[in-house]
C-alpha cells in the first residue's frame, strides 16, 4: 500500500440537489464503500455501481466529504457466501470458449475456479453484476428477445444470472434452479451487493 493510505481515495461528483456520486477505483472498492456507507446511514439509498457509489437522499451533505475522508477500502469481503449449481449447456458456450481461448469443456472449470463477488445490481430486480472473472466477453450484437430465468451469462468482465425471463444480450453458458429474486423473502435478492458467489456443476 505504501503511503497511499494518506490520500482520500474517493472523488465526489454532484448529482442535483440531494445526491452525490462517489467515484472509486474498482468494483471491490465500490462494494466496500457501499457497505460502509450503509452501516452509517449516510443516505436513504446507497447504490453501488461498477466504480462508484451513489449516495441518494444524503442526510448531512455539509459533513459528507469529511465523513468520507475516514473511509479506507478493505480487501476482505464480509458478505455472505452463496453456492450456485449450474448445468453448463448454454447456447453460447462455444463463443465463450473462443473468447477465453480455451476448449468448450474447460469453460465450466474456469467459471468455477474463482470466487466472484456481487458488485452491484441493475437491469432487473435482483440482477447482480458478479466481478472476479478474468478476460472479457462481448455482448451479443443482437440481444435475444427472451432469456429464461436462471440463465447464467457473461458480458464484458461480468457474470450475471437472470432472475426472471427477460430480453437480454449476455452470452449464456448455463442455467441454475436457484431463485435469484423473491420479493416475499426478507432478503429478496439472493445476490445482493457484497455477496460472494461460487459456481459448481449441477449433479
Amino acid at each position: 500500500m505504501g503511503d497511499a493510505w494518506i490520500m482520500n481515495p474517493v472523488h465526489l461528483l454532484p448529482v442535483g440537489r440531494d445526491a452525490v456520486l462517489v467515484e472509486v477505483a474498482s468494483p471491490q472498492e465500490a462494494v466496500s464503500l457501499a457497505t460502509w456507507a450503509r452501516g452509517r446511514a449516510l443516505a436513504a439509498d446507497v447504490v453501488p455501481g461498477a466504480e462508484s457509489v451513489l449516495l441518494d437522499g444524503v442526510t448531512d451533505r455539509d459533513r459528507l466529504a469529511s465523513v468520507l475522508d475516514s473511509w479506507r477500502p478493505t480487501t476482505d469481503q464480509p458478505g455472505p457466501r452463496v453456492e450456485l449449481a449450474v448445468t453448463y449447456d448454454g447456447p453460447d458456450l462455444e463463443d465463450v470458449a473462443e473468447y477465453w481461448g480455451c476448449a468448450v469443456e474447460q469453460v465450466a472449470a474456469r467459471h468455477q475456479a474463482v470466487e466472484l463477488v456481487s458488485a452491484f445490481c441493475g437491469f432487473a430486480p435482483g440482477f447482480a453484476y458478479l466481478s472476479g472473472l478474468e478476460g472479457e466477453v462481448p455482448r451479443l450484437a443482437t440481444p435475444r428477445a427472451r432469456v429464461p430465468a436462471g440463465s447464467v451469462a457473461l458480458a464484458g468482465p461480468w457474470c450475471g444470472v437472470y432472475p426472471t425471463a427477460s430480453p437480454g444480450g449476455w452470452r449464456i453458458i448455463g442455467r441454475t434452479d436457484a431463485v435469484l429474486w423473491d420479493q416475499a423473502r426478507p432478503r429478496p435478492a439472493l445476490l445482493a451487493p457484497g455477496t460472494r458467489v461460487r459456481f459448481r456443476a449441477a449433479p
Partner: protein
Amino acid sequence: MTLEVRHVGASTLVQDRGRPGWAHLGVPRSGALDAPAAALANRLVGNDPDDACLEVVLGGLVLASDHARWVAVTGAPCPVDVDGRAADFGAAIRLAAGGVLRLGRPEAGLRTYVAVSGGVVVEAVLGSRSSDTLGGVGPPPVNVGDRLPVGRSSGAPRPIDTPRPPVPGPLRVGPGPRADRVPGDVLDLLSRTTYVVSPDSDRIGLRLLGDPLPLARTDELPSEGMVLGAVQVPPDGRPVVFLADHPTTGGYPVVAVVEPADLWQCAQLRPGERVRFRRAARR
C-alpha cells in the same frame, strides 16, 4: 370493502409514495409521478400521505363502491361524474354504497389521481403498494373486473385546508455528475434549447426530441447509480429525464438533474408538448 373496476382507459395503476431504499437491489422507487396531485387527493379524503391511490392516464376509469366512501379526483383536470351527475374535480365527493364514479378524458395534462377514503390496500411489496412498470415489482396494472380492497377510513375529509397546486414553468436543472461530457455549459445549453415530448415517454422516462446535445465522448461509462430526475444523454444526444420507474444503474452520462419540486410537470406533459429547462438557483 372494495372498489369494483367497471372500465379502464389507457392505463390505471395503484401508486403511493413508492419504495425508496431498494435501489441497490435493482428495484426502482416507483410511486405517483405527479406526487403533489396524489398527496392532494389523499388529503382531501382524509387519508395519510402514504396511502395508495389510483394513477389514471387520460381518464376512462369507471369504479363502483360497495360502501359509502369519500373520493377525490386531482391531477389532470377531467370531467367527473357520480351516478350520472357531474361532480367536483379537486374536492371531496361522496360516493354512496353502490355508487358509480366515472372519469372523462382530461382536456389538458395526462395523469389524473383518484383517492378513496381508507386508501387502496392491495398487498404491499417491499413497503409499498406502487406498481413498478420496469421491473414488475408491486401489483399488476388495474384491469376491468378487479375488486380493489379499500382500507378502513381513518380521518374526516379536509375540503378547505389543502395546499394550492404547484404552478407550471420551466424545469429547473442542477449539475449532473457527467456535465463535462457536453462541451461548454450544459445547463446553459439545455436552457437555450426547446424540446418536444416524444410519444415513447412513459413512467420510466420523459424522452425529449430537439436539437441533439453535442457529446465530447460517446463511449459508455462504467455503470453507475441513477437518480430520479436525472437528465441522461444517450449517444444520439436526445435527453431523457428519468422518472419514478427509472433503471437504478446505467452507463449513459447524466449531465443534469431536474429539481424534485418540478418533476410533477413531467407526469402531465403530453407527447408533442414543449419543454423548457432553466438553471436552478444555487442553494
